């Protein structure tokens, strides 16, 4: 199931809200019963677990339904992964010697990576072997939705427990909840176990949480349905057709459209995930911070898919030695893996290495003299590199990738064809809105209104409420209209 699906919005969500609230009510009633006589204020872990038992049960059941809706068979694979990680975590928790913990960790990491490899990379390996002339059958394994995300979350759990950043999750249901929780299950953000460990059994929700969460969710819905899906039409028109008919300008419009689409698609998903999490009392980490304002690629990667970047930083780059030992090797390992993580295809590996190379070059050139270069130029440089990167990202067929870039660099039918120019006019306001909304407008507007209405608190609150409300209702209504009979509505990142 995807968030931007009418069935999700108007069947799954209402049913979930009703049962979750019922669960919360039962938890409260039971808690009052158990809490009688306990005046210390301290509660045991078991009591804390009980305090959220019903609503967590509802969350788990709905999460499994959510996943099984798209993967009725692979849901058992996910359950298997949770069982393994639960046992390994418990094993590590009991082991007091570090070596034994390391043994458990090794076993756990191998099983997780082997699972990921089998389901994501085996087809690719067979293809490579066939290209080398070996007679290997195509295993034809379909990719379980979101496997890269939940395996990475599992790894973060094991490593955090191994490092004793957090204790192991003693309740199987608690771990199942962490891995399967539907808001972030299939397309991130990659929530670290330590981030939500406490909130699994101990969380509170205020009206502020719900209001912010709902607003965030609706913003994400708008990003996805109103902007990303419409830009997707442009990409399909320009990039999926016969590339020999494409003009050079059309190739660039296509790349820019895709760069914007993937940002609004993926950050929209993250917003929706963070928003739902907020309403349930979970505080997931942020995943995007206006990446297109970056003035270098180094900065871009600190702002784009942050949960993946920090994952590789903390679990691969630093353990390998970071900047202390053979930094160059470490950088390339990380960027090779980043590319690989996105998909079992050469273009993703190329895409990762492309960024690896640019980051290394940047480190020794631009970053040293960046204060002397005009900001606009730096900004243009960064955006151009990113846009070309998404050109590589788009084409998983190597022949098409090559044809596309030959068109983009002068090999097109003409500079800008009439049909391609027309697309710019036809989607003019969409492009403009997407570019503006990629900038940190919201923060700016909030700061401005705070300054202008500094002494009129009531007015400020009223204006803020009116703006939030009208945005929310308009987004909801427009999204419903755009989702009727919509095809091509899946989130781009659920295939990774």
């Amino acid at each position, binding site marked *: *199931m995807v968030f931007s*699906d*009418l*069935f999700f919005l*108007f*069947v799954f969500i*209402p049913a979930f809200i009703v049962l979750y609230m019922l669960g919360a009510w039962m938890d409260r009633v039971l808690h009052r019963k158990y809490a009688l006589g306990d005046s210390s204020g301290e509660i045991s872990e078991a009591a804390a677990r009980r305090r959220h038992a019903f609503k967590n049960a509802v969350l788990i059941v709905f999460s499994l339904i959510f996943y*099984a*809706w*798209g*993967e*009725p*068979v692979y849901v058992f694979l996910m359950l298997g992964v949770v069982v393994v990680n639960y046992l390994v975590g418990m094993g590590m928790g009991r082991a007091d010697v570090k070596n034994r913990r390391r043994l458990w960790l090794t076993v756990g990491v191998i099983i997780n990576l082997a699972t990921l490899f089998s389901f994501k990379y085996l087809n690719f390996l067979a293809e490579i072997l066939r290209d080398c002339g070996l007679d290997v059958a195509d295993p034809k394994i379909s990719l379980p939705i979101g496997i890269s995300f939940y395996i990475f979350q599992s790894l973060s759990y094991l490593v955090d427990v191994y490092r004793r950043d957090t204790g192991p999750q003693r309740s199987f249901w608690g771990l199942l909840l962490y891995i399967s929780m539907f808001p972030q299950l299939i397309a991130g953000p990659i929530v670290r176990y330590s981030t939500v460990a406490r909130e699994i059994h101990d969380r509170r929700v205020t*009206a*502020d949480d*719900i*209001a912010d969460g*709902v*607003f965030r969710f*609706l913003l994400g819905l708008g990003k996805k349905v109103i902007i990303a899906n*419409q830009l997707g039409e442009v990409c399909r*028109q320009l990039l999926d057709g016969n590339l020999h*008919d494409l003009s050079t300008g059309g190739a660039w419009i296509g790349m820019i459209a895709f760069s914007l689409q993937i940002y609004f698609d993926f950050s929209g998903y993250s917003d929706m995930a963070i928003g739902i999490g907020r309403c349930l009392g979970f505080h997931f980490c942020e995943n995007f911070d206006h990446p297109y304002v970056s003035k270098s690629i180094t900065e871009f990667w600190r702002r784009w898919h942050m949960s993946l970047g920090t994952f590789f930083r903390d679990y691969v780059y630093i353990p390998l030695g970071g900047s202390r030992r053979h930094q160059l090797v470490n950088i390339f390992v990380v960027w090779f893996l980043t590319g690989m993580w996105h998909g079992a295809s050469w273009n993703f590996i190329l895409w990762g290495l492309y960024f690896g190379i640019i980051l290394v070059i940047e480190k020794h050139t631009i970053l040293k003299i960046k204060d002397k270069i005009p900001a606009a130029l730096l900004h243009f440089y960064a955006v151009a590199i990113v846009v070309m990167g998404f050109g590589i990202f788009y084409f998983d067929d190597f022949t098409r990738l090559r044809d596309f870039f030959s068109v983009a660099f002068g090999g097109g039918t003409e500079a800008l*064809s*009439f*049909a391609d120019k*027309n*697309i710019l*006019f*036809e*989607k*003019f*306001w*969409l492009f403009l809105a997407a570019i503006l909304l990629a900038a940190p407008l919201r923060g700016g507007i909030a700061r401005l209104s705070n300054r202008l209405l500094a002494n009129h608190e009531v007015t400020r*609150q*009223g204006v*803020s*409420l009116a703006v*939030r*409300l009208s945005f*929310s*209702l308009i987004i*909801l209504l*427009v999204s*419903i*209209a*755009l*989702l*009727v*009979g*919509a095809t091509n509505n899946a989130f781009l990142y659920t295939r990774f």
Partner: protein
Amino acid sequence: MKTNHIFITVVAVFFLAITLVFLTFPRSTFSEMERRELASFPEYSHEKLASGNFTKEVSQWFSDSEPYRDIFMTLSMQLKGLIALQRSDEDAITIHADNTPTAQASTPVDPDLSGDGNMDEFNVTEGRDAKAKIASNGIIVVGNAPNARALMIYGGIGGGDGYAAAANKYKETFGSKVNVYCMVIPSSTEYYLPEKVKGKSKAMLTTIKNIHSKLRSDVKPVDVYTILGHHSSEPIFLRTDHHWAPLGAFYAAKKFADVAGVPFKDLGSYEKKVIHGFVGTMYGYSKDIAVKNSPEDFVFYKPKDVAYKTTYINYTIDENYNVTAESKPTSGELFYTYKDGSSLAYNTFMGGDAKITQVRTGTGNGRRLIIIKDSFGNALPGYLCYSFEEIHVIDSRYFTKNMKKYVVDNKITDILFANNVFKAYSVKASHYTDFLKQ
């Protein structure tokens, strides 16, 4: 009350209201706009569940059959229309054909029927630089409301061999007693595609030429391509529908009558009728608001100087378009009546496709015609009442009788294949030849 509480309450009430509408109001089953049955709730099976198709179809059903679907769809198209930058200089498009034939015949009696038998591509000189955009489903929308014209992209190169083979087989079967004609009807794309997006669609002429070249020498090709080109500055095609306009069919019928050597009357012998505010199938296909905002007049012509009687054998068809029953012959009107604004105006001709239509006219010339057609052919019989004493209209998708017997029983003298190029391009010969042995 704090602002957050107000926010939550208002959003919750709005959300609840929409949820209740979606869950309790009757679901849409048919889309007027797209002319199609909407998805229905899928049938359950274990295999379907395991493959993930069951849940997928449930989601599709829910979004496809949403209550008030067409209203939301219209809103969605309006919104999509809003994101375009309006350019006033290209608002009006006019399309005029270059009516000077490249190869003038010497002193032609009727310029329509002249020519040396070679079809030449028509060079429409004006309006070819009009604004064009590619909408959904491979539809190109040319110009802005209220004059937008929607064109279907044609992807065929050559092709149509099966269509030619079918006509040849009929000729072989019926021999010299029955004339067989082959008409391939191009669509508006061939005449009105702006120069700059020409690469998006393939030339229909290559298909038509290929079909004509594959016909036996005794099967007569009816070249409507040329005559339609001569008249392309007139409203011979509907702008908002995939069909031609009745006027286009008039010129095609004129050409056919000439080839068949039967009498033919000009438009003075017809009563002109108009259905105003027609917006056809291309609105739903293109999902483009400019098409909805470009209603046109549906003009058709009823013969007034000849008596004719129409008999229908109606077929009942199931959801997969299979014939499940057929009615007894019943008399009816050749032209159905639709109100202004009806999107079904093209059904004026015989009310649709799933039937055999028999028109018996006062033209006692011994010529009896079968038209084997798709919906394009529906517009033809009205113009042939002065030309044939009987016209039998058979849709190739719905015919359950034996064609040999039918031809003999009804003393048929002429058989016309009249299909649009999209169908002619890909159709298998057996689609028609199976009728000879069923």
